[in-house]
């Protein structure tokens, strides 16, 4: 029998209440084995308390060609950052 195992993307939530974070990928024949392999490969040193595994083929990614169209519009909207607005020294708690 010769079948390449599908690729899975692995996400881990660390103990500090942060969101799941992508850490890498691995091959596994099914979701159960993907979890089991992810535990062995990516959590040997207390890296996390929860795992997500997602088939790589299920992930839809933005294309590098669209980078400018997608992300450049945010560049000239500096007023979205609080530091854009000068606040006088004497005004507190804002």
């Amino acid at each position, binding site marked *: *029998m010769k*079948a*390449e*195992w599908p*690729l899975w993307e692995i996400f881990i939530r660390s103990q500090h209440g942060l969101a799941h974070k992508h850490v*890498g*990928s*691995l*091959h596994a*024949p*099914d979701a159960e*084995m993907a979890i089991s392999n992810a535990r*062995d*490969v990516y959590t*040997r*040193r207390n890296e996390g308390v929860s795992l997500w595994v997602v088939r790589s083929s299920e992930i839809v*990614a933005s*294309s*590098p060609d669209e980078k400018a169209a997608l992300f450049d519009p945010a560049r000239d909207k500096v007023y979205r950052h609080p530091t854009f607005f000068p606040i006088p020294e004497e005004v507190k708690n804002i």
Partner: protein
Amino acid sequence: MYAQMVDTGTQGVRRLDEMPADERQFQERIDAGIKIEPKDAMPEAYRRTLIRQISQHAHSEIVGQLPESNWITRAPSLKRKAILLAKVQDEAGHGLYLYSAAETLGVSRDQLLEELHAGKAKYSSIFNYPTLSWADIGAIGWLVDGAAIMNQIPLCRCSYGPYARAMIRVCKEESFHQRQGFDIMMSLCKGTPEQKAMAQDALNRWWWPAVMMFGPPDDQSVHSAQSAAWKIKLLSNDELRQRFVDQTVPQAEYLGLSLPDKDLKWNEIRGRYDFGAIDWEEFFRVVKGDGPCNRERLAARVKAYEDGAWFRDALVAHAQKETVREAA
């Protein structure tokens, strides 16, 4: 190094004004320190060189498990056994991070493994030497993993994103490997005269192969200039080798061991150690497949893969059965 003499498939480095527009654009991104990601445009030679380099690195991690696993069942205590098991398991993980990085370039892991098992792919020369005593496990961790760290730390800054990220992960774990090796050497050197002699014997046998790991001298490294321009090789073979020697000599002195090189001495003017001539004939012999253990390593690797086939097949059969059951 873990990847030695990686062929770039190019002849000499072209100047920016000699490159076609797309290639120049690519080189300018690299020069500006922008990371290249899997879906980005890249020259075919860059892609193919990276596949060779990363897969060779991955193969080295996997084959590198063999000389050490030789001692798992014979470790001198339960503590040492647990530590060695954890170390060898790490190497499997490192191989996997690297195969994953290679796969982002459009090859599959199964394909790469096939090339390894067919004897078409290279792995580091260092793993073709035998582990004759327990002290060799100490020497490998201290010297071989020490040399690996020397090489891998600069690679954390390499131009290809997935490779750089894999290296960061590997480096975090590698320091444990080097320290456990040095710890074994310390125990032996503080032990009986026989134990100290074992440590010295292991050092005598592993020193030169470790120094050779960094690959041929700079004036004979035909592909280094292109790899450096692409920022997939950040320091030259000789520079890495010199740093390794400078770092290791004081550690050997601490252990009270002598390095098997009569020409080794501190050079006040350079502020670095001078060391003796390297037997490059031996290096090339081992790289070309004629080292002490080349055949044994490859045979062990193929056997492990074939012996596991029934288990991998069973996993696939189970997964297929479950899919059918869910659909019903």
